[in-house]
C-alpha cells in the first residue's frame, strides 16, 4: 500500500464513503507498439495552415529568397522621448519590437531591477556598527527572511540590546540619533555614517544634548520608539535605508518623532526621503533634519500637528508625511567593445 492510498482511505472513510478504496488496479496488458491501436480512426486531413507548413525538407534547404542578413525593424527613442524627459522620469518614447521592448530597454530595466534586489538582499554585517565606532543594537528579528516577513519583530529590541542600551547609552537627552539598515543595508553602509555624523554636528552646534550614536540591525522605523523611550530622549531620529526602487538601492530616509514611546503611529512622525548623492546630499539633508528637530523641540510635538509654515522654504521636502521624492533616471548599462 502506498502512503497516498492510506491517506485517501482515511479521508474517504471520514467523508462517509461506504466502501473502502477500490483495490489497486492489476498491471494491465500493454499491446506491443507494432499493432495499430486505433485502427478505425479516419485519416486526418490537415487544415490549410498545416498543409502550408508541411514543406518537404529539400525545399527548406533552398528557399526561393536568399537571406543574407536579417535586420529587425525597431523604433528608436525619438523627439517625443526627449520632450517627455523634461517632465517625467517615466520610460516613455522607448519604441517597440513587435509588441515587446527593444533589447537595450530590456537590459536597462533588468539592471535597474537587479540594483534594487541586490540592495534588499544585502545584510548589514554584525560587526559593522563597532567598526564605525557606534553602539550596535539588534531588533528581535533573527535572520533576513524573518526581517522581511515580520515587521512587528523589527520594531522591538531584543533583550541583550535593551540591556546594552540601558547600561551604556546616555539618558535624558534632547536628540537620540539612530542609524539603521532598514530595507537597504547598501544605503546604510554607503552614505549612512556621513548623514549620521553631519546630523550630530548640526544638533551639537545648536547646543542640544545628543545621545550616544547608535546603529541598529534588522530595524524598522518604529524601533526608534522603544530606543527613544529607553534613553528618555525628547526627539528620536532614525536614519535608515529606504525600500529600493528601480535603479535606486542607495537612498536613505529619516523619520523623526517627538516624545518617542512604544505605540506611536505614523501620523506622529515627520519624514524625509531620497537622501543620497543624486537626491538630497547627506550634509544638506542633515541641516534640514536639524531644522525639523528644532521645530519639534520648540512646539513639543511632531507629525501632522507640527506647524512648519515658518520654516517651509528652508525645509525643502523634509517634514512631509507623503510620497518619496522623484528619482532621477541614469543609464545603467554601458558595454565596452
Amino acid at each position, binding site marked *: 500500500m502506498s502512503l497516498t492510498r492510506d491517506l485517501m482511505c482515511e479521508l474517504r472513510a471520514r467523508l462517509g464513503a461506504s466502501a473502502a478504496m477500490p483495490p489497486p488496479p492489476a498491471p494491465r496488458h500493454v499491446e506491443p507498439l507494432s499493432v495499430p491501436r486505433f485502427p478505425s480512426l479516419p485519416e486526418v486531413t490537415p487544415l490549410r495552415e498545416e498543409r502550408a507548413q508541411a514543406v518537404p525538407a529539400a525545399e527548406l534547404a533552398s528557399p526561393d529568397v536568399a537571406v543574407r542578413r536579417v535586420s529587425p525593424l525597431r523604433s528608436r527613442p525619438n523627439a517625443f522621448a526627449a520632450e517627455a524627459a523634461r*517632465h517625467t522620469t517615466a520610460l516613455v518614447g522607448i519604441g517597440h519590437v513587435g*509588441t515587446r521592448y527593444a533589447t537595450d530597454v530590456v537590459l536597462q530595466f533588468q539592471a535597474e531591477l537587479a540594483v534594487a534586489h541586490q540592495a534588499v538582499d544585502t545584510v548589514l554585517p554584525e560587526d559593522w556598527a563597532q567598526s564605525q565606532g557606534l553602539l550596535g543594537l539588534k531588533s528581535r528579528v533573527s535572520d533576513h527572511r524573518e526581517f522581511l516577513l515580520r515587521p512587528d519583530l523589527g520594531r522591538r529590541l531584543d533583550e541583550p540590546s535593551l540591556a546594552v542600551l540601558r547600561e551604556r547609552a546616555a539618558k535624558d537627552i534632547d536628540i537620540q540619533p539612530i542609524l539603521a539598515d532598514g530595507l537597504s543595508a547598501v544605503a546604510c553602509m554607503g552614505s549612512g555614517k556621513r548623514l549620521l555624523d553631519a546630523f550630530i554636528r548640526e544638533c551639537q552646534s545648536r547646543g542640544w544634548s545628543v545621545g550616544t550614536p547608535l546603529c541598529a540591525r534588522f530595524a524598522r522605523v518604529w524601533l526608534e520608539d522603544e530606543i527613544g523611550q529607553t534613553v528618555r530622549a525628547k526627539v528620536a531620529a532614525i536614519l535608515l535605508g529606504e525600500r529600493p526602487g528601480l535603479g535606486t538601492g542607495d537612498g536613505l530616509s529619516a523619520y523623526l518623532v517627538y516624545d518617542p514611546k512604544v505605540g506611536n503611529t505614523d501620523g506622529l512622525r515627520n519624514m524625509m526621503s531620497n537622501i543620497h548623492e543624486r537626491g538630497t546630499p547627506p550634509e544638506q539633508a542633515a541641516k534640514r533634519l536639524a531644522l525639523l528637530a528644532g521645530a519639534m523641540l520648540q512646539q513639543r510635538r511632531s507629525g501632522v500637528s507640527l506647524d512648519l509654515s515658518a520654516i517651509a522654504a528652508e525645509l525643502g521636502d523634509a517634514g512631509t508625511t507623503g510620497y518619496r521624492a522623484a528619482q532621477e533616471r541614469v543609464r545603467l548599462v554601458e558595454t565596452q567593445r
Partner: protein
Amino acid sequence: MRLAASIRGTQYAFKSVKEVLAKANPPKSGDVLAGVAARDPVERVAARAVLSELELKTLRENPVVPYEEDELTRLVEDSLDETAFRAVAHLSVGELREWLLCAKTSGAMIRAVSPGLTPEIAAAAAKLMSNMDLMTVGAKCEVVVRANSTLGLPGRLSSRLQPNHPSDDVEGILYSMREGLCYGCGDAVIGINPATDTPESTAEILRAVDDVMRRNRIPTQHCVLSHVTVQMKALELGTPMDLMFQSLAGSEQANRAFGISVPLMDEAWEIMKAKGSTRGPNRMYFETGQGSALSSAANHDADQVTMEARCYGFARRYQPFLVNTVVGFIGPEYLEDGQQITRAALEDHFMGKLLGLPMGCDACFTYHSRMAQDELECLEVLLGAAGCTYLMSLPVGDDIMLNYQSTSYHDIPSVRRLLAKRPTPEFDAWLAETGIMDGLAPGPGFGDPKVIR
C-alpha cells in the same frame, strides 16, 4: 457543531468556523503574521475537509466579524437576496465547488445565484479550489458593466492606463498617457494616483485628461484616485469626473483607518449619480488587496482571503464599473513571493466575479518581495485566460510615484494577442480608426504617441 477531521489517525479539531476558514487557506505570510495559519500542510487539508462539509447556511450564520460589531456584516446580511440564497442554502461548500465547476452551470446561472452569496461563502469556495479551478470558474462568470463604454464582454481584456507622476506634473502625466494610448491601453479607465490629495489638484488633472479625451474622441473613462471626500469636493467645483474612486477594506474598523464608512460611501455614490460625467449606470471604482485589514490591526483574527472577500461584499452595494485587487502591493509580510501573489490574484479574481463584480487585477510586486519579473508576466497570461476584466498598464511597468512594479504598456497588446482578446468594442473601433491597432496586430500608428493630439 463539531468541527473535526482525522487524517492518518491524527485528530484535528477546530474551535470555530472562522478558524476552519483560516486554516483551510493556502500558505500566506500574512496569515502567519496574523497567527491564524494552519501549523502544517496536513492540518490545512483537515480544515478543508471540514470546510467542504459545512452547509452554506452555516457560513451565513457565522460571519467572521459578528453582526452586532460590524456594519459590513450587517450590510451583507440585511441586503442578501433571500430567493437567490434559498437556491443554494442546502449545499455544502464542497457541493458548491462542484456546482460551479459543472459544465452545465453557465455564467448566467452563477450570476443569478451571486446576490444570495455572502463573502464568507465565496472565500470558502476559493479555499477548496486549485489555481486551475479558480480560473475555470472565473472565466465562466460574466459581469458586464457600462459607463462611457462597455466593459466585461466575453472575449475582451481591458486595461487601466496609470500615468502617475511623483509631483503631479500635468505635462508629465499627459506624456505618459499618450504613450500608453498608442499601445492600445486605457479602455477601462485612465486613472491617476495623485501625489497631492487636494480637490484643486484632483480637478486640474481631471480637466487635462478630459481635454485630451475630447480632442481625440477617446471612448473611455477618467478618474483621479484621491480620497473619496476630496473627489466629492472636486465634484462641487464642477470638475468632469467619469468614475469616483475609493480603497475599501473588509471590516468597519479597517475602513475607519481608510477614513470611510457605509454612510459616507452612500453619500458619495448619491453625489456621483447626480454630478458624475458618465452616462452610467456604473460609476464607481474600488481597489482592495489581501492584508489591508491586518495592516490596520482590524482583521478580527480572520484570514486575509476572507477579509478580502468582505471588501467585495461592501463594493457590490454600489454597482461599480471597476474593482481591482492590488495584489502584490502591500509587501512580503502579507504575500511573500511569486507563488503567493499568483495564488492571491486568482483567488481575488474568482471571489470578486462570483460576487458579481467586474473584477480586474493590479498584478504587481514591490522590490522587497520574492517575485521575479518572469513570474509577473506569467501571471498576466493566467489572469487573461481566467477572464480577468482588466489589468494595469504603466511605462515598463514602473510606477515612478508609488515605487512598485506592475504590468506594462507593452504587455497589454502582447497578452491580448496571445489570448485573442480585444479591448472594449468602443475602444476597439477607436484603435482601428487611429491606426494604432489592426485587429490584434500592431497598426501603422502603434507605439507612435504623435497619433494622439
